[in-house]
């Protein structure tokens, strides 16, 4: 089985609106999967269904080849966007409790906790009350609670909110390491720069429907606008059958910059051939859309 999770035709209704409308997704094993979408699109509803916090009205969820059932809870780690801990409970005791609820025995949980406390260098926190920790520290504790039982599937909802850049990097490294170890990570966020950096696959949900899904590179391919940025010396023929030219500016003496947009499908090599026959080409770059551009284009409806 190569897919950790398959969501098939899920429909979820609340009293006055439809949160998910016939959503299907496939999450292959061992990747970082970005679940994107504006606020209120239905991401959290979908995540809650996968976590068995709520059930779908229609459709099925397949976990690791089996219909989703109660025992799978132990193989999923979930870091909700709205996160919190028992404020009056000690850090160590609390993590132990959460780990045991995820099916670990006391001694297993202790061993794993020791590993993480050493790794994050937080051994002195064990006896502290959670309310005495800063928000960032609490986030770290919560991250440990999410991954402690070594789940096959880790679902992180906005994991970087509330972290300073140093700790955000620390968590990023941990995410990569977990992926190396074979976990699959579903990663829900609005922050496109982290999607750019982390995700292999993305799916975009908007207004309760899935509007986009696939490997990040393919999506970019799909959205590329066939434009190129070039710098050159000489004169370009403005009237040709292959491309339009816009925004010619002289950036230094004898050096111009311009944006080309293809009129017909020709390969990059072909284009370069044409260009070097006319001008002295100094630089050449295909404009690949950022995830941010794609997100905005899709959600604002210009797609």
């Amino acid at each position: 089985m190569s897919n950790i999770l398959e969501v098939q035709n899920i429909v979820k209704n609340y009293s006055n609106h439809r949160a998910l409308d016939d959503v299907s997704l496939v999450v292959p094993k061992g990747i970082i999967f970005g679940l994107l979408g504006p606020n209120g699109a239905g991401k959290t509803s979908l995540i809650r269904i996968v976590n068995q916090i709520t059930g779908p009205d229609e459709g099925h969820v397949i976990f690791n080849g089996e219909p989703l059932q109660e025992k799978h809870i132990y193989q999923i780690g979930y870091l909700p966007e709205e996160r919190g801990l028992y404020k009056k409970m000690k850090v160590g005791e609390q993590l132990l409790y959460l780990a045991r609820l995820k099916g670990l025995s006391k001694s297993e949980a202790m061993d794993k906790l020791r590993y993480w406390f050493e790794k994050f260098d937080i051994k002195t926190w064990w006896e502290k009350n959670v309310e005495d920790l800063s928000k960032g520290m609490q986030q770290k504790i919560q991250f440990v609670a999410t991954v402690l039982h070594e789940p096959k599937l880790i679902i992180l909802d906005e994991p970087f909110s509330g972290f300073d850049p140093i700790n955000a990097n620390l968590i990023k490294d941990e995410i990569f390491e977990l992926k190396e170890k074979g976990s699959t990570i579903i990663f829900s966020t609005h922050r496109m720069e982290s999607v750019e950096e982390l995700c292999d696959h993305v799916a975009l949900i908007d207004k309760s429907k899935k509007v986009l899904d696939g490997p990040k590179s393919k999506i970019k391919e799909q959205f590329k606008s066939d434009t190129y940025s070039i710098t050159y010396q000489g004169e370009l023929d403005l009237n040709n059958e292959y491309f339009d030219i816009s925004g010619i500016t002289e950036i230094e003496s004898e050096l111009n910059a311009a944006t080309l947009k293809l009129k017909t499908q020709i390969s990059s090599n072909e284009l370069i051939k044409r260009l070097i026959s006319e001008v002295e080409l100094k630089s050449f770059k295909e404009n690949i859309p950022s995830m941010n551009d794609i997100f905005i284009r899709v959600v604002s409806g210009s797609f």
Partner: protein
Amino acid sequence: MKNILLIIQREYLTRVRKKSFIIMTVVGPLLIGVMYGLIFWAALSSIDQKKILIVDKSGLFSNKFKDSKEFKYQFITDDIDKAKKGFKGSGFDALVSIPENILENPAGVQIFAEKGVPLELQNRVEQSIESEVETIRLTEAGITKSVLENAKINIKSETISMEDGGEKKSSSGAATGIGYFCAFLIYISVFIYGAQVMRGIMEEKTSRIVEVIISSVKPFQLMIGKIIGVALVGLTQFTLWIVLSLGVMTIGGKVMGDKMMESQSAISQSQISNLPPDAQKMAREQMKSSGAPNIVPQEIIGALGTLPVATIIIGFLFYFLGGYLLYSAMFGAVGSAVDSDTDTQQFMLPITIPIIAAFVIAQFVIRDPNGSLAFWTSMIPFTSPIIMMVRIPFGVPAWQIILSITLLIGGFIFTTWVAARIYRVGILMYGKKVTWKEMMKWLFYKG
């Protein structure tokens, strides 16, 4: 199942280890001890002798008012107006004026005091004058006191309840006391521990930990684990209170007992001195041999012995748990639906009304423990924990207890089911003011 146990364990341990729990457990019995002490102290110190000045124009009563521990009398023959003038600042608490023609005009007695006349004093004075006037009139009619004494007999009744198993001495006084006490405990504990469940659920909701927890356990497991955990806290607290109270009462009782002994014998002495010489001697001897202060506790123990003690204890535990489970589920539902303490008010009212109503009805039931009001309210699960506890000490037919318990179990299964359905939706509903209508809708949400 393993998860429910883990939840119960956490709910129990975090509460039992709290400082407030330990303080309440220690301070509770001490407060009870202090309360007892205050009552004893008040009882002892209220015996504060009052000085009464009597202007007796008739001259009939000069030796007829006996000084007691409460009152000391002094007679003068001055004019009443003069006595009134001199009364202020004289150190006397009251001034009694008996007119010359008291035999013909019994309504002519007047009592003056600086700040109102205590009822007890008025009664005492009236009684003394009445009995003396009576004696004088009887003597005038040719009846001597000894004839009168012989004519008086003392009736003492014994209350006996007739049951299938035969006759049994009953004590309505003890039954009332015990029944009322148990009902009160249930009433208070439903509020205290119900509110703890509600707060616990609100804490999980507002701190947002709930979403993490219910990704590991079913919402129902979390709710029921909390309810059971708090119930165990309640039982622990009760057990500790009983043990500590008994301790405090034994120690305190010893100290108080000695004091009571002194004052009681002082009272008996003054009572005895009112008796004729022969009787005085007999009473003194009797007191020495029996030890008067022991009479009261023995009577209480005797009265307790007539009560169905085992039924009361088992009944109390059952109705405490049943009532608590029934109401705490509803408190839990409220806690899950709201975001802050202030929002709880509107939802609390419908829950608290039946409890308070039950406690009010209990006052009537206690007077008529087998009436139809008593019967019906001890069947309805929302009132039965309190009402049935009032009735049990008086003896309730087994079929009624069984029916009431069955209905109570049904009742809390029902409220738990309703609460669970509200709970699972409510805990994930942030930042939204919930209405009754909405809560009703939640009942019918799917999965």
